[in-house]
């Protein structure tokens, strides 16, 4: 019997301080039924979360959501986080980021701002987010640089904007950002509902990757380009979260602690709430965080696979979504007996019907409809 490996401390805390959001992005990773639960932790409860997680070892902190700026205590939380020694990241759509707020946040010690854009064109940006926000985001980008923050520009990629990738990179250069995160859509939550419409073709991807390579050679260290390859087109699974319960700890708006921000899609797991348990118990002792730690839970082909220590069997949420069992190998893996499911999804992009179903925007009405449909199915 081998010794139980020591559980390492969490390094990353993601504070999803609210699920309220002025945008309605078709690829949002928030839970589909978010509107059915509007509870949010109080300022004091969030401060306690920050203190306990810092003590456990978390050093990186992301304020996210929803749109974190809709909380008017965000500055107070940033100040507390800075005092505690976190490196603080604000992950925002930019809506609500006025000059008064950005300057206050600088004073309180905010370290970095990640701003999302949906596209390099106003039309597509505004269409995909179902808002008129392109001009506002451009103004916010200028403000971020004016206040001398390092900046990550994040653009989620899919069929509708992959062909604009050159222009997106040019836009980032013009804005003076340090990192451009070109994140191909991962198909969870709202993106999974819209998967058939959002999936690019393989040709689009190949072209986009070649363009990224050209710009990398041209730009060097001036702008770091991170191109997150969409795993459905691969046959090696991603090392999701660097292993379940290994570095990452998310706390949802209502205080549920999650080993991954999409984990609420998994059935049969009860996520401990920070109002009822200490962060230490949650990280080290809860069933939810221990469920997929290590290798004991694995089935074949993962169990005896020499790659298991590199990829941890891939993504649990994807395994569940595409095979119906979260303990299965992520079907992206070429060794998965269900890899064909993934091939079929990719194949579908080459012969899409002329008449497509409309995109489902992330908004309260759609969320409540989905929540009530799920309830009907399960009751």
């Amino acid at each position, binding site marked *: 019997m081998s010794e139980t490996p020591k559980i390492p401390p969490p390094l990353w805390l993601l504070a999803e301080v609210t699920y309220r959001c002025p945008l309605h992005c078709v690829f949002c990773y928030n839970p589909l039924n978010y509107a059915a639960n509007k509870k949010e932790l109080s300022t004091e409860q969030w401060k306690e979360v920050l203190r306990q997680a810092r003590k*456990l070892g978390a050093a990186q902190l992301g304020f996210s959501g929803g749109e974190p700026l809709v909380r008017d205590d965000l500055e107070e939380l940033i100040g507390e986080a800075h005092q505690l020694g976190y490196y603080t990241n604000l992950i925002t759509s930019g809506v609500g980021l006025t000059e008064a707020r950005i300057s206050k946040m600088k004073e309180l010690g905010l370290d970095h701002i990640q701003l999302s854009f949906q596209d390099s064109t106003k039309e597509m940006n505004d269409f995909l987010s179902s808002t008129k926000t392109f001009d506002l985001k451009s103004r916010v980008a200028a403000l971020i640089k004016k206040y001398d923050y390092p*900046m990550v520009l994040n653009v989620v990629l899919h069929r509708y904007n992959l062909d604009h990738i050159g222009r997106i990179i040019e836009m980032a250069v013009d804005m003076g950002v340090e990192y451009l995160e070109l994140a191909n859509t991962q198909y969870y939550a709202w993106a999974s509902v819209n998967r058939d419409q959002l999936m690019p073709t393989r040709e689009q991807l190949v072209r986009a990757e070649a363009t990224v390579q050209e710009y990398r050679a041209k730009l060097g260290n001036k702008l770091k380009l991170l191109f997150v390859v969409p795993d459905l087109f691969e046959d090696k699974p991603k090392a999701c979260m660097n292993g379940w319960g290994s570095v990452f700890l998310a706390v949802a708006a209502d205080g549920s602690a999650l080993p991954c921000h999409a984990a609420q899609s998994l059935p049969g797991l009860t996520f401990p709430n920070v109002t009822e348990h200490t962060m230490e118990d949650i990280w080290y002792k809860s069933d939810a965080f221990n469920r997929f730690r290590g290798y004991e839970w694995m089935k074949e082909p993962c169990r005896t696979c020499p790659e298991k220590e590199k990829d941890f069997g891939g993504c649990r949420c994807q395994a569940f979504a595409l095979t119906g069992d979260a303990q299965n190998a992520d079907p992206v893996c070429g060794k998965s007996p269900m890899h064909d499911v993934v091939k079929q999804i990719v194949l579908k992009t080459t012969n899409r019907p002329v008449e497509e179903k409309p995109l489902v925007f992330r908004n309260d009405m759609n969320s409540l409809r989905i929540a009530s449909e799920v309830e009907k199915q399960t009751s």
Partner: protein
Amino acid sequence: MSAPMIDPASKPKLARLFRMQYEEAQQNWVLLYPEGMVQLNQSASEILKRCNGERDVPAIVADLEQTFNVQGLEKDVIGFLEIATERGWIV
């Protein structure tokens, strides 16, 4: 890509994007930057601590040799500074 040569007269300092701090839970020094962290081993952290924009390379080497009572660190220090420059940690 070959590592950039280090000018011994240069006075390296941590790049603006990085913050260096000691992490109690990890028992080591780290470099923090937007959404990321580099965990430093002891020699890397001892060198970086001395990159304050005031010491040139020979002064950094001399200070390390004195503190740890060893000789002949120059080659290792320059090797590390080259990697750190290439990764953008120091300027």
